[in-house]
């Protein structure tokens, strides 16, 4: 048997082999393989596990290991599809998948690229009539319909858990890293739209015009200023250039 054929057979045994018929050594390898994947998901989704309970989480992990084979050199990548498995298992409980997504996004932001964000001092020197905003690379966005963010906060603090609930209206969760700490907050539909336009390369002047067109002169100017101030304070801006990158 060639080495390639041996390795394919070995891999197939690890994933689907019947341990009862296997040599003791093969059972050790299969157990090690599964234990690594279980540990990866338990470490990555501690709050999701606390929310749905140990037994339900164990069942979800078993289903995930059957469904998804690890393919990357890094075990961290094995966590990427776990929220999809939870969505498949719990189609009527959006807080479960949204909580898992939040854990995953925070973990990914934690090891994302380093940047030196635009400081308020730097911002004072920007020509805002021409500026285009460039955002940091760790930003992730997802629409949320449940109170998953409140659940995350309560679980992190060890506080009494609120019941799962739907938000009055859908929001967007934004996750990013500021300095060395992963952060998140909910943003409303207007801020999301402004953020998407700015990230698409709209100049800040054109962004202001778009917000004014949507909200009126007085509110629009105030909102644009508030968004810029918040994005600066949160460390969401990498830098600002004076040239428009796309029309």
């Amino acid at each position, binding site marked *: 048997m060639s*080495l390639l054929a*041996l*390795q*394919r057979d070995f*891999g197939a045994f690890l994933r689907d082999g019947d341990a009862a018929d296997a040599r003791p*050594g093969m059972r050790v390898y299969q157990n090690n393989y599964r234990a690594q994947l279980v540990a990866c998901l338990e470490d990555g989704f501690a709050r999701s596990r606390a929310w749905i309970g140990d037994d339900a989480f164990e069942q979800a992990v078993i289903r995930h290991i059957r469904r998804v084979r*690890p393919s990357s050199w890094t075990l961290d990548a094995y966590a990427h599809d776990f929220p999809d498995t939870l969505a498949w298992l719990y189609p009527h409980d959006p807080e479960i998948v949204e909580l898992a997504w939040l854990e995953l996004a925070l973990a990914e*932001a*934690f090891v994302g690229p380093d940047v030196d964000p635009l400081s308020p001092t730097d911002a004072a020197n920007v020509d805002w009539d021409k500026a285009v905003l460039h955002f940091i690379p760790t930003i992730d966005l997802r629409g949320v319909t449940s109170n998953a963010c409140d659940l995350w906060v309560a679980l992190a603090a060890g506080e009494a858990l609120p019941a799962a609930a739907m938000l009055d209206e859908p929001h967007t969760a934004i996750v990013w*890293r500021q300095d060395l700490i992963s952060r998140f907050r909910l943003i409303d539909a207007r801020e999301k739209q402004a953020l998407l336009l700015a990230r698409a390369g709209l100049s800040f002047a054109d962004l202001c015009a778009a917000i004014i067109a949507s909200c009126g002169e007085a509110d629009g100017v105030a909102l644009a200023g508030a968004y810029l101030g918040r994005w600066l304070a949160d460390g969401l801006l990498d830098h600002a250039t004076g040239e428009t990158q796309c029309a």
Partner: protein
Amino acid sequence: MHGQSRFGLGLRKPHYAEFLEHRIAVDFVEVISENFMVDGGRPRQILRDVRALYPVALHGVSMSVGSAEGLDRAYLARLRALVHEIEPLFVSDHLCWTRVGGFNSHDLLPLPYTEEALEIVVANVAAAQDALGRTMLIENPSSYVAFDGAAMREWEFLDAVCARTGCGLLLDVNNVFVSAANHGFDARAYLDFLPPERVGQIHLAGHSQGEALLIDTHDRPVPASVWDLYAHVLPRLGPVATMIERDDDIPPLRELLAELATARAISIGSERLAA
């Protein structure tokens, strides 16, 4: 390859703060390369801070030098970037495979010690060393199965890999003990065969008794059986970098430093005997 007594510990998360806040009495620390092959954030910052205080060895678990399909170029590129930044004392990985057909086992899987496997490992180690621009150390694994049709013993296989690629050996004494018990060979014969000039580093660790086999668990102190083998092999090797490897049930740092003191004492005794 060897020539200097250095004594180090594996750097694990529960001890990060102590290593950064105090000058710990080690000559180097060893980290798991993959834990720091990320884009940025706190892990890379911690490694940079540790590197400013201690020499660092990079020890990998995912290179898969035994993979019949060759090396993962994206993995190598990330490791190369880390090597350039950290300038490590050693770069090492295991004689094993982890990857086939888009599947990654995340476990150190055994190789059949055949001529075909030797050609593949030699080609992969040579390619890795070319990509990294430096020689590597390859560690003998613990194993739980052996394959029919082997053309050589594990120590002969390792010797051939070293001779043909110029790589060194990371001799894990515990792994020799575990595999010797599981496969019924003489651990001392294994150690007596190894070319001393190839051994660049030694790992010392503990193991557990499984249902039918010894398991390389790294979750307990170095046992007397492994200390005995360490004392047996040192006179042949001479001064060599030695490290205590603990990956689970990690105790207070002082307990690992006490184990390292034992390694120093055995090494000093060995050098005095040689003198």
